[in-house]
């Protein structure tokens, strides 16, 4: 029985891996950019922007992710409808990516903010003292050191995001868990635990690979911290 289930379901589950990776990667890339921008505002001097971002962030950090996904899934088409744009044809995955990107940006912002505040101010002054302009100092001193301090927290976030792609199936987006659930209901629950188990193992392997990647990256970033 188990081998039979495996043979029938594993290829289909594996076929969903690229989708799961897409649901992880696109929000991560967007959030790194948007989170950086939010962070710049959050540590900056502009009061109006600061409060706008703070409200935005506290909403996304203070409400459940799944509620946000529902609100975007049901609300965004209405919002676009109001300005006479029809987005009913968009796939469910697009809403999931939008919601996750916004949510993740807020968490990335706060992680980066913590990292930025941890950068020794002397490093920034050193950059100024050798004549770095604002952008040179940002890209050559502030950003790399902020990233280095933040990398372990970012890793935790990214692992969560990878696992939380499984929530996408609640709005009908197809990925590993969505596929597993469809097969299960098609078979009226036969082999349910085996199928879910295989899905869990696939998630586990993906997370392990991500963890390895982050460990290698942080090891590389911390090479200067070793005494020999």
């Amino acid at each position, binding site marked *: 029985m188990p081998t039979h289930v495996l043979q029938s379901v594993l290829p289909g589950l594996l076929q969903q891996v690229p989708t799961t990776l897409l649901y992880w990667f696109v929000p991560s890339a967007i959030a790194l950019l948007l989170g950086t921008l939010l962070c710049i505002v959050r540590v900056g001097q502009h009061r109006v922007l600061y409060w706008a971002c703070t409200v935005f962030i506290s909403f996304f950090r203070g409400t459940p992710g799944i509620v946000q996904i529902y609100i975007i899934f049901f609300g965004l088409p209405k919002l676009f409808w109001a300005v006479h744009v029809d987005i009913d044809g968009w796939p469910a995955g697009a809403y999931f990516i939008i919601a996750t990107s916004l949510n993740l940006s807020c968490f990335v912002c706060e992680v980066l903010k913590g990292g930025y505040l941890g950068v020794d101010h002397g*490093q920034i*002054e*050193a950059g*100024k*003292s050798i*004549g770095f302009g604002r952008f040179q100092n940002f890209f050559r001193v502030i950003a790399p050191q902020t990233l280095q301090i933040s990398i372990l927290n970012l890793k935790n976030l990214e692992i969560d995001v990878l696992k939380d792609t499984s929530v996408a199936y609640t709005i009908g987006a197809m990925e590993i868990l969505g596929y597993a659930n469809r097969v299960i209901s098609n078979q009226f629950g036969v082999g349910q635990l085996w199928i879910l188990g295989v899905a869990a193992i696939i998630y586990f392997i993906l997370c392990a690979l991500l963890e390895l990647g982050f460990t290698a990256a942080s090891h590389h970033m911390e090479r*200067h911290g070793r005494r020999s």
Partner: protein
Amino acid sequence: MSTQKASTNGIVITLHDIHKTFGEHEILKGISLEVHQGEVLAILGSSGSGKTTLLRCINALEIPASGTVSIDGQKIDYSQKHSRQDVLHLRRKTAMVFQSYNLFRNKTALQNVMEGLHVVQKKSRDEARQEARKALADVGLSEFEDRYPVQLSGGQQQRVSIARALALKPSVILFDEPTSALDPELVSDVNEAITAVAKTGVTMIIVTHEIGFARRVASQVVFVDQGRILERGTPEEVIDHPKEPRVQAFISKLSYK
């Protein structure tokens, strides 16, 4: 490093009536001074007198409330509107050696020195590397070029930081208490490196607590007290024969320590 003594003794730096306040507290109450080409100016004074703030006003790490700073043809009048570009151009005439070294901790000694040459002065990597190696050799650290700051002693880090400043060939190098964070036995190495740099004719301004070192290396000394210059002159005048009672008291306290 240029080994040739400056032929002209023109004025490189002019500060005129510099004021600086932090909140309600006025730190600098109108400081004016001139530094000539090749001169080594030592700024003395007790803690809280404003000497470090004065130094940081020269390269605009602190922005003065008013007054003008002019370095080698670049001038900013802080009472008037000035742009970020003005500040950047002025700052690029200078380099600084910090009390706590402030080497880029994620870069090797060589990369630290190359950074300004390559990124700011737009020299090719090869050219920057060559000049950086020369500057490291000048401070006696050639064999440490691939070490990260954490792998160097405080004295070595500070010498790398001197090389980083030196390599830029700035109009002036600013030293902010360069030895006060060092273990006592490492101080002399750093002081020697600074003295060697001074002998090459580089204009320098040094904020220091070390009267003895100031006496040896400086050609001019100013004594700052409560945001004003209380006394100025040659080391013989200010350190050996101070006129102001406040300066006399300060010097005698330190000499007997």
